[in-house]
């Protein structure tokens, strides 16, 4: 019974000064491992042999489109959904048989799930009262949590008197008030508008770091996942495609799905041949492009991956070959103004139009449609991925 002795420890040192922020999770606690987790509904495998190892104190995101199985995975960790096969280990112990209320996780739900009939104070006190904390300790800890989410004077308010952002903070305070080693968050910012969402991202991240807790965070928003996470698992159709730091998964996707899902991506299909570390993709036009090869990619059909912001664009038709860069000639088909960037679609021979992003910097004038251009990008910035499964 992991959480029982944890609670005892919290009681023993339940004397934090109100404003003082105590690191919550005891060091080394809150490591979560998913081992071959599988969930089927009828013939539909919604979570397929998911293996993840989440370290103590890590901010870990499950990222994927709707229907990718990320929420089901989280609900299995929480204990609301029973896995068909596989195990969930908390600090090495299998918690399959432990009911949700005994797992001792903090939870933030998609629609906040604030209790409408309880005041802000009582909402936040709920996990403590459910654990039969003494009255004084409850009051002290709730005040601490209210200060932490900067709702210090809102304790007496009723939930319906709060804005969406404030309700979100209440939900957050309620999830961390009992110092859980692990906090599960299911699209917690989904209902907020963009500016507020950005603000809350920073706040949640700060609180997580301050308290040293493990956070498992479900989102479909790749920017959110990248800005907050230590590591991200990208899921699709119930399977983990890739796990890595935001930089890794963005710069070095293992397949076209990950490449596309994390942002704009150019994927130029062709035949792959290897020559040492650097492989070549032959476009249908006959032109060869070079790039390092992803380990998942064999000879045969493949795709060259390059982010739009890594491509340089120069007017002209002359493209001298360079040892460390790929060049392609083409012509401007479209230029979209997106504020801070100009997004070009460049028509090239034998491939989909290439997207190129240019900073809308001083002195940049948009190129006219039809203008001949040369595209150039460093070999090392691109990557050869396996082709999409047909």
């Amino acid at each position: 019974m992991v959480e029982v002795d944890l609670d005892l420890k919290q009681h023993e040192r339940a004397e934090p000064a109100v404003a003082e922020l105590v690191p919550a999770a005891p060091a080394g606690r809150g490591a979560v491992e998913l081992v071959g987790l599988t969930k089927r509904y009828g013939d539909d495998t919604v979570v397929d042999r998911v293996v993840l190892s989440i370290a103590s104190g890590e901010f870990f995101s499950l990222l994927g489109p709707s229907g990718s199985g990320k929420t089901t995975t989280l609900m299995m960790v929480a204990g609301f959904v029973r896995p068909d096969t596989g195990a969930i280990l908390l600090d090495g112990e299998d918690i399959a048989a432990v009911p949700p209320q005994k797992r001792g996780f903090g939870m933030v739900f998609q629609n906040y799930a604030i209790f409408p009939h309880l005041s802000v104070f009582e909402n936040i006190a709920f996990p403590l009262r459910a654990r039969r904390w003494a009255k004084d300790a409850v009051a002290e800890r709730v005040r601490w949590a209210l200060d932490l989410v900067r709702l210090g004077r809102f304790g007496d308010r009723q939930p319906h008197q709060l804005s969406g952002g404030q309700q979100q903070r209440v939900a957050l305070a309620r999830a961390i008030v009992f110092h859980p080693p692990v906090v599960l968050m299911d699209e917690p910012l989904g209902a907020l508008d963009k500016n507020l969402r950005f603000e809350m991202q920073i706040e949640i991240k700060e609180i997580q770091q301050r308290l040293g807790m493990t956070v498992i965070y479900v989102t479909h928003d790749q920017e959110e996942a990248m800005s907050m996470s230590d590591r991200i698992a990208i899921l699709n159709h119930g399977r983990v495609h890739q796990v890595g730091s935001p930089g890794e998964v963005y710069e070095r996707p293992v397949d076209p799905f990950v490449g596309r899902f994390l942002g704009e991506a150019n994927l130029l299909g062709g035949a792959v041949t290897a020559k040492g570390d650097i492989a070549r993709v032959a476009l249908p036009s006959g032109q060869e492009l070079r790039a390092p090869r992803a380990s998942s990619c064999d000879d045969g059909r493949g795709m060259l991956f390059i982010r739009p912001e890594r491509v340089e664009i120069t007017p002209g038709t002359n493209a001298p070959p360079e040892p460390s860069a790929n060049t392609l000639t083409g012509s401007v088909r479209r230029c979209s103004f997106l504020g801070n960037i100009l997004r070009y679609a460049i028509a090239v021979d034998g491939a989909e139009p290439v997207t190129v992003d240019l900073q809308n910097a001083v002195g940049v004038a948009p190129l006219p449609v039809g203008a001949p251009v040369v595209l150039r990008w460093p070999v090392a910035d691109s990557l050869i991925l396996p082709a999409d499964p047909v």
Partner: protein
Amino acid sequence: MTDATAAIPASTLAAAKAPRDRTLLLLLPAVAMLVVMFLVPLVVFFVRTFMEFEGSTAEFLDQAQDLLLSQPYLTALATTNWIALIVTVIVLLIGYPIAYYLTTAKGLGVSIVVLSIVLPYFTSIIVRTFSWMVLLGEHGLVNDTLRAAGLIRDPLPLMYNRLGVLIGMSYVLLPYMVLTLFAAMRSIDASLLRAAEGLGASGFYTFRRVYFPLSLHGVISGALIVYILSIGYFITPALMGGQHDIMIAMLIDRELEVAVDWPSAALMSLSLLLVTLVLYAVYYRITDIRRLIGAR
């Protein structure tokens, strides 16, 4: 809200108001029917009662005081309220689990339960009461079965006493409670229960702290409905009760049919109506009726 209203020209406001006024016309048939068939007879009835005293307020009040402090009336009043209270408690205790089951379960079970609750609702109350009499009588199904099984020698007194009244009335009033509770429970957000569990609350704690408080307005509305209906009850206690189970409605009937004392009957009706209206006012305060019927 205020700002927005201030910014709109007065003419626009008037235009926006017009359609709402016209929708009120839709209520006209119902209002007309209520006025003609309920309000007018009621007023006529009470005015005529008052005329019996030849317009003397003092005499009217005198008689009213005599009547309302008379032993039979006070006894019936106490009996009525006591029976109404017990019936309300019984119906609540039986109805709450049924309503909860209906909100959570799916499939055939739900259909069967709903059918067995709602179907009798559409059956004549006299038929239902006589059915109970068939079951509970001295030679009814229950007593015969128990006797055949050798569990009892003499028939149990299940009817023509307080027990019979409570059984009959609870059965008849159960659907009102179940349907009211069901409406209240269905509006409880299931994610709140999940949140409570996820945050460490046991099933019982979740019920006590989250589910029950959120269903409380349904409990209060249901109890008030059942109580209001109970205090005016006539047929079931008349058919299934004993000598000591005289409720106010029965007393009124007796004044009319046996004693042919219209003024007394009218006074008692008035008192019953007043109690009902007061309870209804409470009910109205507590329950947003539109929410009860599912509108938001």
